[in-house]
């Protein structure tokens, strides 16, 4: 399959890239790893007059802790996340996620920023970032601004990014002591999109009760879902089986999946419940809760 014709630009600075986006307006698309965009262009489900490749702009690939945040450069490849020692040891939810995004070959090209900016509700990072309470830094003609992740996804394949802005950094608050997280995904085979998946990040207080809970759901509606009722319910609760079961029920109630060849609406909603319960149990265990 061959994409419809387009022009290709390979800027070497952010300001050059932003100027190209301004110049070409809604005709332009940012090309990061290209693992979602190029298949769409090949299938001609999408079209772009101009691709602005950010792959030659230095300084957009990093994973580091600074100023109370884990900061991830927008063009950081999923394979880097998968291999990162700091991610493996301190952010197991992110490591879980990186391991189930597409397959290892795709992860050598696919980027974290691209996974978010593409805003496919079946992508895996949106749920994880919702659970972690992340924010994203976007860079445009007027400089940088920060968008909380729960304000970022505005619709299917739509985000709060302006056409001349680029997602340049993901910022995750460094979890306090007694925190843990997990991402649990049901997929038909390696590389498939989720039938359903749940991301959970919890922090326990000194007495072992839940102090903070973040729950994000993949492929559960037209946008990534933040299960706020379930999150609120868990506050100050002892993390026992009854609390997990009720939170999972509330999370499933927040979903509005659509039927496709991966399953019916009822099946996907039920899987959202089961996977939320499993992710919660794992997150609590990782937080040292049992």
């Amino acid at each position, binding site marked *: *399959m061959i994409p419809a014709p387009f022009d*290709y630009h390979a800027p070497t600075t952010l300001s050059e890239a932003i100027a190209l986006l301004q110049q070409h307006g809604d005709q332009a698309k940012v090309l990061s790893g*290209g693992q979602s965009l190029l298949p769409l262009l090949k299938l001609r489900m999408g079209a772009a007059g101009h691709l602005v490749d950010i792959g030659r702009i230095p300084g957009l690939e990093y994973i580091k802790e600074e100023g109370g945040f884990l900061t991830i450069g927008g063009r950081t490849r999923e394979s880097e996340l998968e291999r990162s020692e700091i991610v493996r040891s301190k952010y197991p939810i992110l490591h879980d996620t990186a391991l189930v995004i597409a397959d290892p070959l795709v992860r050598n090209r696919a980027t974290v920023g691209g996974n978010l900016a593409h805003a496919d509700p079946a992508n895996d990072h949106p749920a994880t970032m919702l659970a972690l309470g992340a924010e994203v830094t976007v860079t445009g003609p007027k400089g940088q601004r920060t968008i909380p992740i729960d304000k970022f996804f505005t619709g299917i394949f739509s985000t709060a990014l302006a056409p001349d802005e680029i997602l340049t950094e993901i910022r995750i608050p460094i979890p306090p002591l007694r925190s843990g997280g997990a991402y649990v995904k049901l997929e038909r085979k390696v590389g498939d999109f989720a039938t359903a998946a749940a991301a959970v990040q919890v922090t326990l207080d000194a007495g072992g009760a839940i102090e903070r809970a973040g729950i994000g759901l993949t492929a559960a509606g037209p946008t990534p879902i933040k299960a706020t009722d379930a999150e609120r319910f868990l506050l100050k609760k002892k993390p026992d089986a009854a609390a997990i079961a009720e939170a999972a029920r509330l999370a499933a109630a927040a979903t509005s999946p659509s039927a496709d060849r991966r399953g019916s609406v009822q099946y996907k909603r039920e899987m959202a419940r089961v996977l939320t319960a499993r992710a919660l149990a794992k997150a609590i265990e990782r937080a040292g809760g049992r």
Partner: protein
Amino acid sequence: MATHTIRITVNGTPYERQVESRLLLVHFLRDQLRLTGTHIGCDTTHCGACTVILDREPVKSCTILTVQADGGTVRTVEGLEEGGKLHPIQDGFWQEHGLQCGFCTPGMMMTSVALLGRNANPSEPEIRHAISGNLCRCTGYVNIVKSIQYAAARLR
């Protein structure tokens, strides 16, 4: 039609070519350089038959624009044999019957070569993880794993 001049090294040979923006790397390799060992299977980023090594990383060449590889170094299955001698991974697939129909084999071998470059002694789970983006529709995975283990032993 937008075209660009690119410089790319494939299997040790430098090329300078005019290419269209939309030309996929797999089409550049197969149609322009006539390196047809790299296969097109699903053409939708699933099967891995088109896997080549780009700047040390195995990638799906059906999902990369040739212009994105400008300045890069590509290794394809044709670049494995040296001086008439099979690469240990090729020998491994031969000795351990790592192929039946052979369609996935070039991609499978490129992924394996990249794995062995990073990990000289991979465990079976590590091998299976590494090749999880390469599909063998003959489902000959047991012998594929043995072939990679054979090559790993030869290369150590």
